[in-house]
């Protein structure tokens, strides 16, 4: 009997990490990071957030077929987080609307990279 050859890097390698990307777009990872950081900071309680997420997904599913291509798990996540923060009075009713409009009104070419808020590059 020979010793098995184990791939550690190649395509047959076991999933050292997730095996696939957890996030397909940067905003998804920010929405994820927001909820986890707010929980860690004690601003939200995880189980309460989970219940809101369940409710949000339930509303989407009631209105769509299971294979509807507009499905976005992370959109539900974002909506649930917003709703929870609204319900808790952490943010006001139109805070996110107003700030979104402000961000949308930024000059074209503005660096939208928001991975680091400590500085904003204006390299144009």
């Amino acid at each position, binding site marked *: 009997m020979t*010793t*098995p*050859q*184990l791939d*550690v890097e190649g395509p*047959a390698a*076991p*999933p*050292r*990490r*997730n*095996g*696939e990307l*957890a*996030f*397909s*777009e*940067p*905003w998804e*990872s*920010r929405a*994820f*990071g*927001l909820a*986890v*950081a*707010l*929980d*860690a*900071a004690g*601003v939200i309680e*995880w189980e309460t957030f*989970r219940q809101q*997420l*369940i409710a949000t*997904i*339930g509303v989407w599913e009631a209105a769509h077929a*299971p*294979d*509807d291509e507009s*499905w976005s*798990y992370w959109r539900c996540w*974002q909506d649930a*987080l*917003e709703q929870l*923060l609204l319900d808790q009075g952490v*943010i006001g009713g139109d*805070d*996110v609307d107003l*700030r*979104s*409009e*402000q*961000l*949308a009104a930024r000059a074209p070419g503005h660096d*939208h990279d*928001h991975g*680091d*808020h*400590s500085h904003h590059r204006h390299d144009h």
Partner: protein
Amino acid sequence: MSISERLPISMRTEALESILVERSLVDPKVMDAYIKMYESDVGPLNGAKVVAKAWVDPEFRERLLADGTAAVGELGFKGPQTEHLEVLENTGEVHNVVVCTLCSCYPWAVLGLPPSWYKDPAYRSRIVREPRAVLHEFGLDLGADVEIRVADSVSECRYMILPERPAGTDDLSEEELAALVTRDAMVGIAKVAGPQ
């Protein structure tokens, strides 16, 4: 309908983050650290180590099946979504497969973040109604004599599967065994294949 619903969702996330940062409720650096941790450092390899240990250490296996949270904690794996971990053993007679029908609860600390199919409405509803057909689509055909049990992560419970140890692995070390274990096997949509 809010005026901003015509804007891309990414802008709402950015807006929410900027408001919360302004009010010192979140620190972007803390967010970055969590994202990096779950995106690249925490993954199914943690669960694979747990499975391999259970295969070679019968006492650990017993502790794992009795109290998953405490047993994986022995290996240093703990964190949100793993507070109530229940480990289910797959055998030749009973095959467990995990789902969260309501949202997408998943034991992050041992499996990383869930794959996209796990969160899809189609998987979450169909695996309960027709598990045999869904497993077939994943490439897993189980004999008619195998009982399939669907573990739904309701309430605060999270599930992980302890798959069957494949034949022909008696000479393998714990580390070599861990390399055989896949995420799919720990969710229950696959079996662990023996060494090639």
